[in-house]
């Protein structure tokens, strides 16, 4: 558990937020893949063809650079992130 970093994920379409434990050296892109794997086809319908997902700090409007590592963002433990469809 000590190697894993806790994030709170708010995935578009889901009924509530989820806890995701991630490797702090993983990129946000990888976090998105983990979230997709856990939630699409479980609580959220398959995404429309060509849907791009972006990540934001919960409540903010600017997308984060998803190629960067989790550790690079200075997230606090249990930071909430929105994973939403890019418009």
């Amino acid at each position: 558990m000590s190697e894993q970093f806790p994030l709170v994920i708010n995935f578009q379409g889901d009924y509530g937020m989820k806890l995701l434990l991630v490797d702090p050296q993983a990129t946000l892109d990888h976090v998105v893949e983990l979230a997709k794997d856990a939630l699409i086809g479980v609580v959220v319908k398959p995404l429309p063809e060509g849907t791009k997902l972006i990540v934001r700090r919960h409540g903010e409007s600017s997308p984060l650079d998803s190629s960067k590592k989790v550790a690079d963002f200075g997230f606090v433990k249990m930071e909430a992130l929105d994973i939403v469809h890019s418009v």
Partner: protein
Amino acid sequence: MGMLATRDWYDLARQTNWTPKYVTDADFFPPDFSDPYGVSIDMWEEFDEPYKVTYRDYVQTQREKDVGAYSVKSATSRSEFYRKAEPGWKSILQFHFGSVPFVEYGSISAFARMTRFGKAPGMRNMATFGSLDETRHAQIQMFFGYEFIGEHRAFDWAQKAPNTDNWVVISERHCFDDVEHTRDSVSSAIMTNFAFEQGFTNLQFIALSADAKKYGDYSFSAMLQTVQSDEARHSQIGEPLIEIMLRAGRKEEAQRLVDISFWRVWKQFSALSGVSIDYYTPLDRREHSFKEFIDNFVCTQFLRNLNALGLDKPWYWDDYFLPDVSAYHHAQQIGMYLYRATQWWDAVAGVSPRERAWLEEKYPGWTDTYGQVWDVITENVLAGNYDRTEPKILPMFCNMTGLELTGVAGKKWDVKALHLDIDGRRYHFGSPVDKWIFEQEPDRYKGHLSFIDRFVAGLMPAGPDGPFEYMNMPAGDRGVCGDNYKWAEGYRGRAAAE
């Protein structure tokens, strides 16, 4: 020898205050336990409870009630009834008997503290009977529940629940410890008797009783009604208390207590009664929707009582409470079904085609919101992918409710959390109201770890079974789908046709 009529001696007999000679008033009634609001003793002695009862009358009445309730139980063949009951009804019974008895049991001591530390003699008198009432409630609900222990292991949770750290129980304990057990007698009484008991107990004990009678579960219906008859009496402790607080110029304090307690207890009853009424009760036996019961018991009756006392609608009523009535329990039901293994009762989905039509009728927009999640779950069930109906990641919990942090799903997706950072720790809240409550007394709440906090902190045993071990839930104790996925069969023909 002629006997005095009760009305000729009752008021005098209950005037049990005296001026202490050997201890100070503060020693006798420590403010932190009794009255931190500085109301004068003269005002406390004006406490006038609407329903008065003597001990002799109490014993006689309660005995008659018990004869009535227990005889109904004896007359009906309960084991046979249970075996023939629909899965949703079984879910209701399993859920109720695990989650309610220990709260009743805890209330015995809450009333006992009012008996000892209440400055108003009438309040002490009523609270004494309140303790006896709650003793009865704990006993009757454990006794009725235990009849089924041979039918399903879930009924062991009538006794087991408070001795575990099951996440549902943690949530309940946090709420009712806050409202009933960790405040002075005045605050506890306002929060418990007025906001909790008058506000919400009708939902689980009258509304559900109506559904039970309609279902033919006369024993459960009688049990619920007899419990509520006591509630109607001892919950009136709160009203004269609030009247005195307002006369003493303490309206703001009384209002805050009601605002805090109402919301906290609302969340508990939304999950318990909302799911029971709108999803577990067999469709043909539903008297009303949960929202319709709320409109009657809470939005009409309780609000009328609140206004009559001179208090205001809680500040969050229009913007947060009313929308929540049509939303919260729907989201909680999804979580309760998906994470059913973490609960002691078997959960039913309650979303067969006919049930979905009913939900859409009663909650327009349900299909485009919560229905979108159920579409995914339904597909998995039809494909036999049962493992995908149980998520591999944990839900996030609100740090006030201790329940899942939820919102609106699907096409109108709207899930929001607010947060506070205190001493290097982030707290999340499912609504501005939950955050506001926390901010009233951060020191009261900040030390508590939700179930999810404990998981993150490594307080649970390692491995996939760690959370279950933490909750003292071996494999046989975990909830399953109550009708073995039959609820989805109504979609199979539709799926093929499409």
